[in-house]
C-alpha cells in the first residue's frame, strides 16, 4: 500500500496514582519529557503531536485537548486530539502511526493523559452521560451495570466460574507488584481475596475492577530512516486495526466482542500474521475488569471462544508461560487512567521487546507483541501489533 515503516523509539510514563498532586498538564509534560529524554530528542525534533484523553467530563474542561496542549509541547505544531472512549490509549498511537506511515511527518510525539480525581467525589458519576439520555439515563444506570451485565452473559454463555475469572485479577495484580508505577500491585493476593471482596454489582466484585487513577504516558514514533539513526533497537509498529460496533449495545451479542475480532484481523493482515497464537509472544489485552481480559483474548483470536481462562489455568498466561498476558500488570494492577492505561500497554511492549522491562521482563527474547484497548459504549476495539 506504499506505507512507510514506523517505529517506537522512546517511551515515558508517570506513576499511576489515585490522586496526583500534579495537574493534568503537568502529568502530560512529565511523561512527554521522559519519553523525549529516553531517546535523546528534544521538542525541536518533533514535527507533530497526537494527544489522547478521555471524556472532557472528567476534567470539567471543554476542548480538553487544546487545554492540555502546552503540556504536550504542541504549540506551533500540527496537533490533534483523538478520543474513542477507553479505546483512546491504543488509538492515539495508531493516529501517530498514520501521520508517519503516510509520509506526512517523520517524527511524532504521542501522549495520553487522564486525571480522573478532579471529578469529585468519584469519577463514576461522570460516566452516567455515556448512556442514551432518553431511553436509558432515566433508569439511573451506573457504569458497573453494563460490565456486570456483560460479565454475567459471558460467564453464563460459556459456563465459566467466578473463581476461574478471579485468576485474571490475581495474575495481573501480582505482575504489577514488579511495576514501579503501579497503583495496585499485590504480590500475595489470592483467588479467595478476590472472591471475598465487596460485591458491587454481582457478578462484579471490588477486586474484579481496576482503580480510577491519574497518570500519563508518552511514546515517540519515527519513520524508518530516522529510527535507525536514533536507536539500535527500534520497535516496529507492524500492524494496526480499529473497529466500531453498534451504539445499541442491548441489540448485540454481549458474550463475544466481534468488533475486537475485526480490529485484530485488520492488524494481523497488515502484520502478515497467519497464526496469532503462535506468532504473538506477549499479549496486553485491555483489562479494566478481569473478565474483559478473557473476552478480549478471544476477540484477538488468541483463544477459542469461552476458553481464554484456560490460558490462566494452565500457566500459559504467566510471565514465564508460552504467551504471557499483561506482564505489565495491566489496568487491574498498574491502574486505569483511561487513555494513559491503553498507551501504557504500548510502552510495556516497547520495553519488553527491547529487553528493558527489568523485574517484569518476559524470558525468551520475545519478538512480537499485541496491545489492545476497548471502549465507548461497549463498542470499539483498537489494536496495535509491535515487533522487533
Amino acid at each position: 500500500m506504499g506505507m512507510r515503516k514506523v517505529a517506537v523509539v522512546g517511551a515515558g510514563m508517570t506513576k499511576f496514582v489515585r490522586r496526583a498532586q500534579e495537574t493534568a498538564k503537568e502529568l502530560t509534560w512529565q511523561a512527554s519529557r521522559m519519553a523525549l529524554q529516553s531517546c535523546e530528542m528534544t521538542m525541536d525534533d518533533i514535527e507533530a503531536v497526537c494527544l489522547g484523553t478521555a471524556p472532557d467530563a472528567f476534567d470539567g474542561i471543554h476542548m480538553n485537548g487544546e487545554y492540555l496542549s502546552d503540556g504536550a509541547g504542541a504549540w506551533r505544531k500540527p496537533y490533534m486530539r483523538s478520543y474513542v472512549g477507553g479505546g483512546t490509549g491504543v488509538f492515539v498511537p495508531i493516529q501517530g502511526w498514520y501521520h508517519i506511515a503516510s509520509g506526512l511527518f517523520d517524527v511524532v510525539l504521542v501522549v495520553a493523559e487522564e486525571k480522573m480525581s478532579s471529578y469529585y467525589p468519584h469519577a463514576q458519576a461522570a460516566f452516567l452521560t455515556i448512556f442514551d439520555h432518553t431511553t436509558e439515563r432515566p433508569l439511573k444506570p451506573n457504569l458497573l451495570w453494563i460490565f456486570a451485565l456483560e460479565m454475567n452473559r459471558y460467564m453464563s454463555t460459556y459456563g465459566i466460574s467466578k473463581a476461574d475469572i478471579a485468576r485474571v485479577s490475581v495474575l495481573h495484580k501480582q505482575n504489577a507488584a514488579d511495576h514501579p508505577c503501579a497503583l495496585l500491585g499485590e504480590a500475595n493476593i489470592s483467588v479467595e481475596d478476590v472472591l471475598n471482596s465487596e460485591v458491587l454489582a454481582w457478578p462484579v466484585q471490588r477486586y474484579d475492577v481496576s482503580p480510577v487513577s491519574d497518570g500519563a504516558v508518552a511514546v515517540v514514533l519515527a519513520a524508518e530512516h530516522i529510527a535507525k539513526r536514533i536507536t539500535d533497537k527500534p520497535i516496529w509498529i507492524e500492524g494496526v486495526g480499529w473497529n466500531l460496533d453498534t451504539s445499541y449495545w442491548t441489540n448485540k451479542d454481549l458474550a463475544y466482542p466481534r468488533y475486537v475480532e475485526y480490529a485484530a484481523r485488520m492488524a494481523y493482515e497488515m502484520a502478515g500474521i497467519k497464526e496469532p497464537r503462535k506468532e504473538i509472544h506477549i499479549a496486553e489485552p485491555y483489562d479494566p475488569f478481569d473478565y474483559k481480559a478473557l473476552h478480549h483474548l478471544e476477540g484477538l483470536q488468541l483463544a477459542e471462544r469461552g476458553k481464554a481462562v484456560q490460558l490462566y489455568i494452565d500457566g500459559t498466561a504467566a510471565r514465564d508461560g508460552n504467551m504471557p498476558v499483561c506482564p505489565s500488570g495491566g489496568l487491574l494492577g498498574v491502574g486505569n487512567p483511561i487513555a494513559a492505561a491503553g498507551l501504557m500497554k504500548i510502552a510495556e511492549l516497547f520495553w519488553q521487546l527491547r529487553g528493558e522491562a527489568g523485574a517484569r521482563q518476559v524470558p525468551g527474547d520475545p519478538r512480537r507483541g499485541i496491545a489492545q484497548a476497548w471502549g465507548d459504549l461497549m463498542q470499539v476495539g483498537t489494536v496495535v501489533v509491535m515487533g522487533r
Partner: protein
Amino acid sequence: MTSNHHAFPGTPLSEDEFRQGKILFNHDRLNGNFAWDTGIAIGSYLAGLKEGYLSGSRCAHCRKVVIPPRVVCEWCFRPMDTYVRLGDTGTVNTFSLCYVTWDVQRIIDPEMPAVIEIDGASPGHGILHKLGEVDPQALHIGMRVRAVWKPAEQRTGAITDILYFKPTGEEETR
C-alpha cells in the same frame, strides 16, 4: 528502559491530605441543563410508552425488527420502513444485582438491571431496564418477564412509564 530508570514522575496524594486541606484546591459545580428533542423514531417509541405499549422499527430489506426504533437501518443504511407494535413481554438476556447507586452510595436491597429481549423484536434485540417482584436468588438468564406499567394517568411518555419487569411465571423453553 524501566530497568535503567528508577525515578518515575508523579506525586501521589492521599485522600486525607486532600480532605484536610493540606493542599490547595478549587471546587466548582458545572451547570448543565438540557432539553433533548426526542426526534422521529424515539418520539414514536415514547408516544407508545405513554399509551402502554413497546414499539420497534422494521427493515424490510434486512427483515429485522429492532428496539428501540430508529430511522435508519444499521445493516443496510436504508430507511426503516415501518414502526411496529411489540409485546410487553420478553426474556432476560442478562442481569446484575447491583449494590451501589449511580453516585456510588451503598444499598442493601440490590437494584436488578437487566437486558430484556422483547417479544416481537428480532432475536437478541433487547432493552435495558430493571427487574422487580422477584427473589434475587431465583433470578436467572432465560427467565420470562412482563412489563409492570404505571397507571395510565401517571404515564408521561418516558422509559420510566414501565416501573420494572416481573416474572410471568410461565414455562421456559430455553
